[in-house]
Structures are given as C-alpha cells and as structure tokens.
C-alpha cells in the first residue's frame, strides 16, 4: 500500500463524513416537509429525489461537469462566494455526493416521520414543547433507527460512488482521488496486489456496515421506502 493509497482512504472517509453531515442537515427538514405536505407536486418532487437510485451515475456526473465548468453560472457563483474554482475540486465532490446520496438519507427519514403518530406530537405541544423541543425530545428518539439507517446508508453509498466522481473529480491524489477511483487506476496499471487490498477492504467495510443496518430493526433492503410510499398512496 503506497502513500497515495492511504491518501485515497483518508480522502474517502473525509468525503463520506462531510457528505453525511450535510445530508442529515438538509435531508431532515426536507424529509419532514415531504412527510407532512399535501401539495400536488409531491410525487414529482419525490421522483426527482429518487432519480439517483435509477440513473447511471455518469448521467448525473455529465450534467454536474457542465454545471461546474469555469464559465457556468454555478461555478461563477461559487467563485464569488468562496473565491475558488469548482472544477476538479474536493468541494465539487462533496456537492455531487450530496446530490447522489440524497435519496438514501431522505427516504428512510421520510418513512420514519410518516409513521410517527401525530397525536403524540400534539400531546407534546400541549405539554409545553415547542417545535425544536418536540424534535429533540420526541422525534429524534422515536425515529432513532431511521436516523441510524439514513446516516449509515448515506455514508456507505458515498464511499461506494464511482461514476459521478470519475466524471467530475478527475484523479488527483490527495484532492479528488477517492478509493473507488484509486482501485480502478491500480487495476489499469496492473498493480493487482494493491487492488486486492483496496477491493477486499471495501467489501469488508460494506459487509460490516450493511450487517449493522440489518441488525437495527431488520430494515428490509436499500429502497423499502420506495415500495411502501407507493403502497400507501
């Protein structure tokens, strides 16, 4: 295992952690809103969020590549905001990962929020708990498993992404070269021993993570919320 391999592992963990934190911050209010709203375009919004589940990652990567090109509006706005460029940067990887892993966080949370018995929230309000208080004292503990599943899936799925990164991140060690890309490159250059270590490591990691997910309340599959959402409408 070379220095670059360790850099790739470190970068992957950093990317997945940051992505998961951002996803929980964005995904929680989004999932709450989707669970409670009755607006007509809700199925369309849900479909948009679920898109990364069915699209080849290269499709998302392609559009992001165009959006992140230096002369695009998104890149210009980013430059105005941060002073840096987006193309082939770590920030671009984080943004892409957030979009790509969104359904894996939003769906388990939305599922949990929908199953939350709303009279319990009314009762908490009558006992003097405001919205933030209700979230931390009631929603979080009651949907604990959903949060656990959402963070684990969000993290693991970010670790496992390849196509999007390949399209927009390039392959800069220590900056955008994540594990899956590093593995691809080792295989291309016939370094099979390192490739075995990386591939075997990813399999072990994924197996442990998924076993944990299944252990927590027998969560059935990656996309049960897609099915149950369909069934309840």
């Amino acid at each position, binding site marked *: 295992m070379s220095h670059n391999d360790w850099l790739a592992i470190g970068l992957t963990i950093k990317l997945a952690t940051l992505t998961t934190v951002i996803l929980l911050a964005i995904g929680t209010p989004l999932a709450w809103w989707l669970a409670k709203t009755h607006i007509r375009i809700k199925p369309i919004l849900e479909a948009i969020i679920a898109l990364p589940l069915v699209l080849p990652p290269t499709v998302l990567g392609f559009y992001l590549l165009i959006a992140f090109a230096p002369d695009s509006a998104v890149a210009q706005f980013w430059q105005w905001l941060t002073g840096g460029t987006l193309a082939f940067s770590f920030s671009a990887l984080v943004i892409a990962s957030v979009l790509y892993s969104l359904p894996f966080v939003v769906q388990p949370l939305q599922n949990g929020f929908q199953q939350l018995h709303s009279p319990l929230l009314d*009762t908490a*309000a009558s*006992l003097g*708990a405001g919205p933030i208080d209700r979230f931390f004292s009631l929603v979080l503990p009651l949907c604990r498993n959903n949060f656990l599943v959402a963070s684990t899936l969000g993290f693991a799925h970010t670790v496992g992404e390849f196509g999007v990164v390949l399209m927009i991140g390039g392959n800069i060690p220590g900056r955008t070269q994540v594990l899956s890309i590093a593995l691809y490159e080792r295989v291309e250059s016939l370094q099979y021993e390192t490739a075995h270590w990386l591939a075997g490591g990813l399999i072990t990691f994924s197996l442990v993570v998924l076993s944990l997910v299944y252990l927590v309340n027998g969560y059935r599959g990656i996309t049960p919320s897609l099915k149950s959402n369909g069934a309840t409408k």
Partner: protein
Amino acid sequence: MSLLLSLHLKRGDFSLDVDAALPSAGITAICGPSGSGKTSLLRCIAGLDTAPKGMVQFTGQDWQTERRFVRTEERGIGLVFQEANLFPHLTVAGNLNYASKRQFNTTGPSVDEVCTWLNITTLLKRSVNKLSGGERKRVAIARALLRHPQLLLMDEPLTGLHDSAREEMIAVLQNLPNHLAIPVLYVSHSFHEISRLADHVVLLDQGQLVAEGDLITLSTRLDLPLSHQQGAGAVINAILREHDPDYQLSTLSIDTDHRLSINKISAQRGQTVRLFVAARDVSISLDPPLHSSILNILPCEIDTIEQQSASSLNTQLTVRLRLNEHYLLARITRKSCDRLQLQEGQSVFAQIKTVALINEYGNAS
C-alpha cells in the same frame, strides 16, 4: 364567564359554528352525537386546529384573534385524548417528568400528590407498553396535571375502558375539583359520564350550538336531546337533614315541601349533595299510594309531556314533573299516559324507586 369562543370552521360538508361564553371554573361538558364537532371545538380551543377568523379568549388572554394566534405549547393547557398517547420511549416516570420539566404554572401539585390521587405510585418504573388500558389513562391524566395547566381539556378520556375501570375513573375525576381549582372542559357523548361529572353543559349537534347552561336545568328539558338519552334523568341538589341510624337511611330535602330518603350516606347535616334520579325509576300516580313499598313519593305537577309525531309513536314517553323550583323526569308507557289521561298542569304523585348519590361535595351548589 371567561372562556370566550367565536369559532366558525368549514370543512367539506361539515361546518362548526360556536359562539359561547363558558365558565372558568368547574367541569363543563361538551356533548353531542358523534360527528357533532365536539373534538373540532376542543382542538380549536387547544390551538391544534385553526378556525379562520375565529376568536378564543381565556380569562383575558387572547389565544386567537384576527391578528394573533398563540400556539398550543404557549396556551398553558393540559390535554387528555381518547388514546392515552404516552411517549413509548419513556417510562411512566419519564412521561410524568416530561410534563414536570415544562410546567406552565410554577405552583401546583407535586408528582407524589398527583400519583396518589390517580393511584399510579407503584407504576412509576414501568415501561408504558406494560400498562393496562385504565392505567394508561390514569398516567395520561397525571401527566396533563403535572403540566400545572390553567385549563384542562379532556376528549372522551374514558373511551375504551370496561365498566368497572370506567366507574373507578369517574370517581377519580369527581374528586379532582377537591384538589385543583382549574376549569375542565370535558368532551363526551355519554350522558352517564356527564350527569356524574359536569356542572355546566354545552350541547352540540352537526357543528351548531344547540344549548348551553347548567346541567341541572338542561338535563330535564324535553326539547333537548339530554332528556331522550338511554340513561336520562334529573340531576338535583339536596341538603342533608338527618340520619336514621335504625334503618340506615338519610333524609334529604330538595326544598321545604319535598324530602327524600336514601341509603345512609356519610355527609354532614346541612351539607349539599348531588343526586341523580333516573327517568325510568320514576312512575306517576294520580292518588297518593297508601300501601306502597316505595319510600319516596313526592307531590308534584306535570310540567310537560313529550309530544310524539303520529308517524313515529314509541311505546314509552317522557314526562317532566315540577316540584316547586325543581324538575324530575318520568319515563312511562304511552298506554299509561292515555289511561290516566295525564294533562300538563295536572297535580300527581311521583313514585321514585331509586335515588343515586352522585357526590357528597355539592360542587354545583
């Protein structure tokens, strides 16, 4: 009169229109058949539902006006639903603590006191999933009281309890006013519960306010649905006069002309007690029955006879009897009514088979 309401709500076919001024003391029952808007009314008072352009004011505090809407958590209310809605991730003690930590008034009963009133002291360490239906209800009521609310709202709190648990809970609730001086709004469709608990009644039908007033007055009005319920009857206040230790009876006076004997009770002389006389336990006689085993025979006047339309004649009808200022109901067969040729204004004798003691506290003096 200090819960002022003006609520107008339209949802599909259902509309709620209530303008009322309710007392801010004692127990006020909101009753009516299912779908009459009882729960909607309660939810608007709680701030869980909003009636556009409504007005809710409690003892001078604006809870809802055109410009202002105070959220549920800031209204300082205690709420008990049909379901206990205990928080499943907390123990019984945890549920009670949830309310204690967020109490509205700084003064009020302690956890120990409330647990004693509701007899849940031994349950504190239990998981809420291991409680019986009655226990869950009692914990829910305890939790609402520990919020130290300024108004207690209860929505059919005895639904789903079997008879003995229900009677036990009624006894507990009857006792509450002795411990706590907060007004209670009690939603129920059961006349049995209302007759035992309420001082004041709000009658709803299809979202409209039918009548509102003293239970004693409304329970015997033949133009209102209360007098046509299964267990209809008259609620009467009486003063304890004397005990008869030989026969284990107590004598009570309704007014100077009318006295009743009931099984000996523990109240003191001069104390006001509340009685319930079921309509089916009252029969009418034209002459004073001299050789009857019935102890309570009161002279009275027929006030009103229930009118039945020719198209829907029932076997039985209800007659309202007047004893000076007070009223009784009698449920008799239509045949008897015709045979005795009963007329409104006629002087008759009411034979009362049983008199039930509601409470000895006379909270509706």
